[in-house]
């Protein structure tokens, strides 16, 4: 029973074909999203092609716009990776929002309290942020495990709790006493220990580089480690994983701890790189966590895909802001485009390309011969 077969490493052609196949659905969804967005723009009395053109230009068209987009993409990448890890391993968590808030809050407090060389303060503060997100995710995992509750619901509810904890803390416990604007609900500004900008004059900071490194690290973990293998098998078929001897409980805690750490790191980078303090609502109002989930859906949980889909989604938002300023097109168009994309991606939108053959005349039963009624 020996068959000679070309097995071994995957050929480049085969890989390219698979890659193109993977890109088909997100590409179609983006296209449909832009079409619907264009229709809305046209309905509100603007020229759709011009508007979408300036939108893309406003998102990616110049060094300034592009770096603004990359700044905005940074927390989305972290949230996307956190979501992808959890969902791809079969533990659907919506908790990135709460974990980012906790990560950002803890990091903001660590950074104003630690002293020493900036690199030292940055590292410690980032680690504290990771720890904050991790512990908050652990809480969700424990509640879900101990009381057999749906993780989806637990994480969703804990997001609200995290938001209120952060509001309370910033309002009553660690409110910035020195601020020029004393009414702002925010913590003290971090002086030393902020993440430097990559290019002077542009907002994009080293948090983006950390995000890029994290993408590669997660890619490595998922494809090249036993932990990643077990997590993926658990996500693809939990019974198969259990049969293979993979401890599903241990995997749940491992996956959710790592996912929480990623979200926490995302919140921490946003504090150290963009806001320099915790500002109430800084995670929830831009909707970083939700954009992250959309990004991971678009990329079908692939880390590199998430990197690009996050930048794309961030670009839509910056571009949406740009056309609102320059043309007066409502920036809600961005939300509409994002929603259409999300809908089409989650519906696993497939266009079946049918090969149409010329059909000959339809078959009619021969005269008098009602085959299926005949009795012997």
């Amino acid at each position, binding site marked *: *029973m*020996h*068959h000679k*077969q*070309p*097995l*071994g*490493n*995957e050929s480049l052609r*085969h890989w390219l074909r*698979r890659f193109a196949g993977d890109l088909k659905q997100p590409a179609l969804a983006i296209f449909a999203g832009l079409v619907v967005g264009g229709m809305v723009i046209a309905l509100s009395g603007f020229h759709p092609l011009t508007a979408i053109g300036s939108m893309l230009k406003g998102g990616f068209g110049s060094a300034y716009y592009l770096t603004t987009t990359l700044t905005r993409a940074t927390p989305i990448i972290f949230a996307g990776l956190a979501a992808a890890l959890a969902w791809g391993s079969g533990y659907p968590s919506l908790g990135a929002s709460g974990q980012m808030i906790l990560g950002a809050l803890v990091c903001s407090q660590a950074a104003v309290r630690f002293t020493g060389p900036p690199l030292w303060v940055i590292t410690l503060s980032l680690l504290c942020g990771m720890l904050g997100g991790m512990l908050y995710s652990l809480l969700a995992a424990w509640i879900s495990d101990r009381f057999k509750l749906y993780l989806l619901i637990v994480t969703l509810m804990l997001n609200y709790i995290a938001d209120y904890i952060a509001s309370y803390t910033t309002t009553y416990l660690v409110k910035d006493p020195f601020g020029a604007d004393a009414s702002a609900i925010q913590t003290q500004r971090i002086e030393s220990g902020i993440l430097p900008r990559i290019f002077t004059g542009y907002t994009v900071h080293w948090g983006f580089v950390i995000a890029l490194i994290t993408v590669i690290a997660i890619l490595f973990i998922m*494809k*090249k*480690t*036993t*932990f990643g*293998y*077990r997590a*993926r*098998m658990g996500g*693809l*078929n939990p*019974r*198969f*994983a*259990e*049969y*293979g*001897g*993979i*401890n599903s409980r241990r995997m749940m805690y491992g996956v959710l701890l790592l996912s929480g750490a990623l979200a926490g790191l995302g919140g921490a980078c946003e504090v150290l790189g963009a806001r320099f303090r915790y500002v109430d609502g800084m995670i929830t109002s831009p909707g970083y966590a939700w954009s992250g989930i959309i990004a991971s859906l678009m990329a079908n949980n692939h880390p590199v895909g998430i990197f690009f889909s996050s930048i794309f989604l961030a670009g839509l938002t910056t571009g949406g802001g740009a056309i609102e300023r320059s043309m007066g097109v409502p920036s809600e168009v961005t939300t509409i485009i994002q929603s259409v994309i999300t809908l089409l991606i989650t519906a696993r939108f497939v266009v079946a390309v*049918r*090969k149409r*053959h010329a*059909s*000959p*005349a*339809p*078959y009619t*039963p*021969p005269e008098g011969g009602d*085959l*299926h009624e*005949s*009795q*012997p």
Partner: protein
Amino acid sequence: MLLRMHQISKSYGPVTANDQVSIELHKGEILAIVGENGAGKSTLMKILYGLEQPDSGTICLNDRQVVFHRPSDAMAQGIGMVQQHFMLFGSMTVAENVVYRKETRKGLFMDHRRNQALVRELSQRYHLPVDPQAVVDDCPVGLQQRIEILKILYQDAHIIIFDEPSAVLTPLEVEDLLKTMDQLSRLGKSIILITHKLHEVMAVAHRVVVMRDGRVISASDTSETSLEKMSYEMVGRQIPTRRMTPPAVGNPLLEVAGLSLKGEPGTITLHDIHLQLRQGEIVGIAGVSGNGQSELIRCLAGLQAYDAGQVMLNGTDVTRASAGTIREAGLAHIPEDRYAWGSAPAATLAENALVGAEGRPPFSRRGILNLRQVNAHAAHLIQGYGVKAASLFQQMASLSGGNAQKLIAAREIARKTPVLIACEPTRGIDIGAMEYIHGQLIEKRDQGDGVLLVSSELSEIMDLCDRIYVMFEGRLNGEFIRGEVDEKTLGLYMLGGNRHAPQTALG
């Protein structure tokens, strides 16, 4: 000529599934199409049923050319298919399932009485007794298949395709099915039977087409061929008759004492199971499927918690241990359901070949996978067992059922553990692959390992097992030594014919 498929060709990428295949079907005829997995039978039927489009070739019904874009086109022309996996609504009644999509209504509502009468009439006309008011989930598998057949007859099909219809049936149900096919052909229906069980072909078919590697090897009247000739044509070589040496039995490897499981209401409970497996023997668990074999094996493999009992594996107490611990202690397991438990259909072949071994060298060190070793191992299994695959990185789901089973069996046998549990290891696979897996099981036994073989195929049990337990309604109700029992006695025990205390054959 009722149906002619002429010069049908179909390729999937580099794999040619059908190469200039032609078949003919006459009215009232039972045509069997036999061949190994991947021989192209299923592809040909998918084309006939409108699930796939041929690259070239034509289909003629009553000498008129037809094209089927989708199954509803084929159904409209009177072609029906009894699928391996039944397409039934489990919580609905038999009548509701049969008349689905062509139900009689009273205004907006179903006319239940009329529908039931229609089904009753249909069931009498074709001698297929059913209770139209019964709920499908309460019907045994054989009856569910009968409902599928009625569904197709209700759609006025005059050509009925049976795709591996006996794979899920008990021996008695198979006999009923063969009778049904015979009756249908006498009533003027034409039948295409896809199978690899040659004795069924000899029992019921008028003509037989043998396929291999996507081509038709022979087409002949059943009376002009023989089991030996067909199996030779299918495999392309002679199947050697198997001779087993007497077992060289050693120390106990697996000892189960007093295992009991109280399931949820309505599920099987296990009562006080005692069994033993020793080095150098193949021990069979015979029984009609659904008598607790699945539950017992899940308990032994650490996939199901049980209420009482002790399990010793290779000198280690593995009572209530986790699946991972039990694997480490020396158990490999070919599960009975290849997609629910045995594989992750959406994962690649390489990933599926790794499970259970990912944590140890040479496949990983300190948590880092060695992908070169992982892929080499998968390629080795695929080539060694003749799994028909195009790439290591294709999805498991893209393999045919038999090839998926081969890969799972290969993975578990290659682990070289002292104990192997093989559940229905050859269900739904062809003679060549079956012979190969049987050979591997015997080789494992001859090397001094123990094999626990669970099978509802009596012939498999009789051929391979040194010792046989019979399982009925959650109990082991008999134990026999090879050569001291015939199929008839085993069959009697399998149906619970013997209710007294278990005999023991171990000295």
